[in-house]
């Protein structure tokens, strides 16, 4: 490098060495950037953009604004106390006619149904009748066509629709909703589920993480201390399931755990139980299957950290008079902490998003937030709710990560 720089400096074009060096440096950086670019684009388009879009969907909903433009515009001046005036009803009649003609009533009804379940169909049918109206006064006629148009809560919902942004989905995701006159109230018990759901998700994730640590730590220790010829074999046994698809492993657990599955039959043959135990479609099945699937994620980081701890440390401690447990606890264990932290964090965060496994081996009250996100995405097509739940889950995950970072320090984490 030095000789090259000297050569460059001697070239007759009179350019200072510093400029030349920065130019070379800049070209090298550019080349590195171009090499990274495909991945960067991929992450941007395949990951950052959809997630950003999802976060946006959680608060953005312009259904009413675009499909009922006249009504929402007329309502911006409404004080929200009594029913709106005749001009607003005239705007409503226009909007209903237009929506009926453009067959966009379904979308409006669906949006209203989210907040006022059961009203959607009445609103659609009132639009059918309203489409034949030709002259006012609209206010008494529309209320006569369908009393929903005389309801305060319908109008305050429409007024909220005049903004393209709504906290409704986020509120609903934590079991709050709008009351009849637009105040925020707790959801009634028959529809309040999400607080439970988030707590349940958290509890299952913590439980599974603890179990994987409990089961994984001794195995990792064994792997790290055994002679290579045994540990390699053991390693293959740990890693082999890791290479199998998650779905296959979950189905395998169904086979093992079901009423007349391998485990129940075996326990009955050994006369340990007389009736088949309920091992599946409940919390037991969920925890067992998830722990099995997550085990390598916790184990491998711990193992690779243990590999780097020189055995001589323990021997030194022992030779200085420490008992076997004391030496382990005071000398060895603290050194494995970065691995434990990495493994547990990995498992915990992955657990938060589980959805297939609880769906297959869990009962109805083992379903985690992921299952509701899937439900809203695929079945109800309520992408606002799906996005809001996703956004809350993501934020909670990032928050936990932040707290973890403050407590343990991410830079101390080691994957090996």
């Amino acid at each position: 490098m030095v000789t090259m720089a000297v050569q460059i400096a001697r070239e007759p074009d009179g350019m200072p060495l510093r400029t030349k060096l920065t130019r070379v440096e800049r070209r090298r950086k550019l080349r590195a950037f171009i090499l990274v670019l495909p991945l960067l684009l991929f992450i941007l388009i395949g990951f950052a953009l959809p997630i950003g879009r999802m976060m946006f969907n959680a608060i953005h909903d312009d259904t009413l604004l675009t499909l009922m433009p006249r009504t929402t515009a007329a309502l911006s001046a409404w004080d929200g106390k009594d029913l709106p005036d005749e001009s607003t009803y005239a705007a409503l009649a226009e909007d209903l006619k237009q929506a009926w003609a453009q067959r966009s009533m379904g979308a409006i009804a669906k949006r209203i149904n989210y907040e006022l379940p059961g009203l959607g169909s009445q609103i659609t049918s009132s639009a059918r009748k309203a489409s034949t109206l030709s002259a006012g006064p609209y206010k008494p006629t529309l209320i006569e066509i369908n009393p929903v148009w005389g309801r305060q809560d319908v109008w305050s919902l429409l007024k909220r629709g005049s903004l393209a942004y709504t906290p409704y989905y986020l509120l609903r995701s934590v079991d709050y909703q709008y009351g009849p006159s637009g105040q925020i109230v707790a959801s009634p018990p028959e529809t309040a589920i999400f607080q439970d759901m988030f707590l349940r998700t958290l509890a299952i994730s913590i439980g599974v993480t603890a179990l994987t640590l409990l089961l994984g730590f001794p195995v990792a220790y064994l792997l790290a201390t055994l002679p290579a010829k045994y540990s390699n074999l053991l390693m293959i046994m740990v890693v082999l399931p890791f290479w199998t698809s998650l779905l296959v492993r979950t189905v395998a657990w169904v086979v093992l755990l079901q009423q007349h599955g391998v485990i129940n039959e075996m326990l009955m043959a050994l006369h340990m139980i007389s009736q088949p135990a309920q091992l599946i479609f409940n919390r037991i099945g969920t925890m067992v299957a998830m722990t099995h699937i997550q085990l390598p994620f916790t184990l491998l980081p711990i193992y690779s950290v243990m590999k780097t701890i020189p055995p001589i440390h323990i021997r030194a401690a022992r030779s200085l008079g420490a008992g076997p447990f004391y030496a382990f606890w005071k000398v060895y264990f603290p050194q494995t902490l970065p691995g434990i932290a990495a493994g547990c964090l990995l498992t915990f965060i992955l657990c938060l998003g589980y959805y297939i496994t609880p769906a297959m081996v869990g009962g109805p009250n083992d379903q985690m937030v992921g299952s509701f996100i899937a439900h809203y995405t695929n079945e109800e097509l309520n992408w606002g709710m799906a996005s809001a739940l996703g956004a809350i889950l993501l934020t909670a995950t990032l928050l936990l990560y932040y707290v973890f970072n403050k407590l343990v320090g991410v830079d101390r984490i080691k994957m090996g």
Partner: protein
Amino acid sequence: MRKTRLMDVGALAVISLATGVLAPATPVFAGDQLTITSFGGPSQDANRKAIFEPFSKESGIKVNEDVFNGEISKIRAMVQSKSVSWDVVDLYPGLAGQLCAEGTLEPIDWKKLGLDRSSFIEGETTDCGVPEVVTGKIIAYDKDKFPNGPKTIADFFDTKKFPGKRGLQKRPVENLEWALIADGVPLKDVYKVLSTPAGVEQAFKKLDTIKQDIVWFQTSSQATQLLADGQVVMAAAYSHRIVDAIKNSGKHFQIMWDTLQWSMGVWVIPAGSPHVDAAYKFLAFFALPQPQANFSNIMPCGPTNKKALALVDPAILPDLPNAPDHMANALRVDAAFWSEKSDELAQRFTVWVAK
């Protein structure tokens, strides 16, 4: 120096490759063909044998098949994004009514089909569908477990008399009705009661009594699997699936035909389908009595063309949900009710299940 030049070229190649992948693919040439989407499984196999293949032979139109699980969201997404790849879809009439009202389906032009709506069972139900098939939801049980099995739906809710897990499909349709009937509501009043908040409350309360004993399943095909594995002792299932399991897999299942809940499947055409004409040709062929009877002979579902029932093999007839014997104490699943209430009740149901 040469090495770095090579690296530059390599990087460029990677980039151009990436952009090449991202560029929209040009559509392939579409000949005379259409895509029919149904629920898969043996019933789609029977459709293929009795209807799709003879139709292709007669008309020269190639039939592609796809499978879905009744997710109307997929149809909505296709129509909204104007990329309709399904031309004829098998759907519940309630959902068809919902989609019809919002303009997601093509209204059926019966004149163009050359058919009379009144010659079909419930031909008038929806403007966007041609009645395809009559299906029956029944309670099936394991004869080995209960030689003297449940006789009424009240028995299904009686966990003392008939202990064991029950399999139900995870949706409000049929389950709320059965709960009310078991609670003593007469068949003719079921939907009247279910339209009131107190009726909904009553249905959920009745379901609460067996909640601990319910194994929920997602797709209707899982019912036979759960029964066969001994995971449940009885389950709500489509009658044709159970008949198939008894006849073709030798399972010891028994059907309780009492309080059968029958409903229809309809063929619909998503709005903006690129092969509407081929779809109409298909529907006109399918609606003939003989192909329908052929279908029922393979798959014991009821035909919708009123003339077809007479053409069905007499040995098969007792297995069909709309055989005269079974209709005595049967409930017609009210498509109109569900198209109006399904959003509301599904929300409530989803939460109730997960609690």
